[in-house]
């Protein structure tokens, strides 16, 4: 392989990568989002307590606890509140105040409304791709 060809391939790939990256940044999948300060506080709490170490969102995260993507509709706010206040055998009790609990609930509701993570909701196609069933 000549030096020119190597440089040409590397330059083309890097240019394609940068175009792809900046195109993605400028056209993020969700354009309009009502992200309130309460949700933002919930996200802060989620990160401060490192919830993702044990829990998943869309299957990404730790596996010690369940996936929480759709826990808001599946279990409801009271169930979540009980866990946030008291924890369980494995999960520490975070002793959150009412304001923080409301913030966590708002953030979990935001995640819940973003989509469905349940693998049963997907249909597989002959070419190996998947589609979410409405």
């Amino acid at each position, binding site marked *: *392989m000549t*030096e020119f060809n*190597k440089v040409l*391939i*590397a330059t083309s*790939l890097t240019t*394609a*990568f940068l175009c*792809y*990256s900046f195109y*993605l*940044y400028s*056209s*993020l*999948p*969700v354009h309009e*989002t009502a*992200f309130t300060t309460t949700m*933002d506080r919930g*996200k802060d709490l*989620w*990160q*401060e*307590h*490192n*919830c*993702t*170490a*044990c829990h*998943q*969102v*869309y*299957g*990404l*995260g*730790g*596996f*010690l*606890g*369940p*996936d929480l993507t759709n826990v808001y509709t599946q279990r409801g706010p009271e169930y979540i509140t009980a866990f946030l206040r008291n924890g369980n*055998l*494995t999960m*520490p009790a975070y002793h959150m105040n009412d304001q923080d609990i409301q913030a966590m609930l708002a953030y979990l509701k*935001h*995640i819940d409304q*973003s*989509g469905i*993570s*349940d*693998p*049963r909701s*997907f249909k*597989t*196609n002959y070419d*190996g*791709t*998947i589609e*979410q069933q409405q």
Partner: protein
Amino acid sequence: MAPSNSNSSSIPKYFLLTGLFLLVIGMFYGVLGGFQYLIQGFLKSWLSFDKVRPLHVSSVVFWIILGASGSALTYMQEHTGKGLRWPVLAYAQFVVFVVSIFAILFSYVFGMFGGREYWEFNPWFALPITIGWIMFVINFIASIGSLRNQPVYVWQWLTGVVFFLFTFLESYLWIIPYFRDNVINDMTVQWKAYGSMVGAWNMLIYGCSMFLLTKISGDQSIAHSRMAFALYFTGLFNLMFNWGHHIYTLPTHDFIKHVSYIVSMTELAILGRILWLWRSSLREARKHLHFTPYRLVVAADLWVLLTLALAIVMSVPAINVYTHGTHVTVAHTMGATIGINSFLLLAFVADILTRGGQVPFVSERLFRRGLLLANGSLLIFWISLIVAGILKARWQVMETRTAFSLMMLQLRPVFIVFTLSGIVLMTGLCMVVYSLFRNYTSTFSSDKLS
């Protein structure tokens, strides 16, 4: 390629030794995490899983980063036959890294987190890590000198150092509200960054691996061959565009998933080549097996095959939808970080500490036994994670699911196997690390005498 000379800076050795220390710490927290799977509430009040997981992940990731940068800096000096352009910069990088790494590990103990999935720490610590890496990039490029007619491993190293910086910065875009204010946008960009970041450190490691193999065989033409560059560009193509296979189930752009699916399948060519050359690789392996570090390269070769095969299977969306969110993903990560990255890094450390076989290998028996133990237990560990993943995948698609806690209880026998094999794996790797430390002290004392 020139042999190591008196101009060579020894600072990279400190990177390697600190990395080995972090590997041991990382394994210790990994085993602790295994026990937390087995015993509910184990250490919950003072070192719960939310602390143990980042302690484990960050220690091991920093082992990989320090090991890869230390090896690349050493081999780059061997390649150029000159020392580092600015040794003081490498020293400054080392100090910045070590202070930041230990501050990060302590921050977890005190409950300070970044709270991101996978590799996380408080964003303030990203600043010194970035500064340290910029020093590395500057020193590395300046020390290489001309980029004309360089072998493939120099291309791989440069790709690794530059792309790591890019993806590391990209992984902090979430602090900007534009990226942060929607979970789907945030996760899309996060996994774009992390997916490529792993590819970046792999480039550094594979570059070192190519350098070592070239050195062992004594044939420089391999590193300039058309095939070597074809494989490098396939790897680069994957580093840039295959990250979407992490987020097939995320309701993000469809084109990301399609691009990733197609690009991931190009890895079939690499898998096919490994299988095609299997016999000649075995013949080549037998020829060099007396050279102790080479044994680790052979072990890593086996893990490349297993991990790549698993990665390709998992990159098919119709399969990924079931394996995603299960321990199959962990099996893939463990195969890659232990079987490939760590085995290769240990091979480089062994080669560097014994100066490519010029210095007799101390505690060789312990090293070989440790390696055998680590390899065997890693295989059991890997299989048990796949079994746990398949069982969880079956639970995920049940029409009426049992409770999560009940499913975890049913997986308990598998968790016992993976924790026990994890302990044996840690023992084996500790034997290897101990023998490497003994080699370092013996070379160090002989250097002092001479």
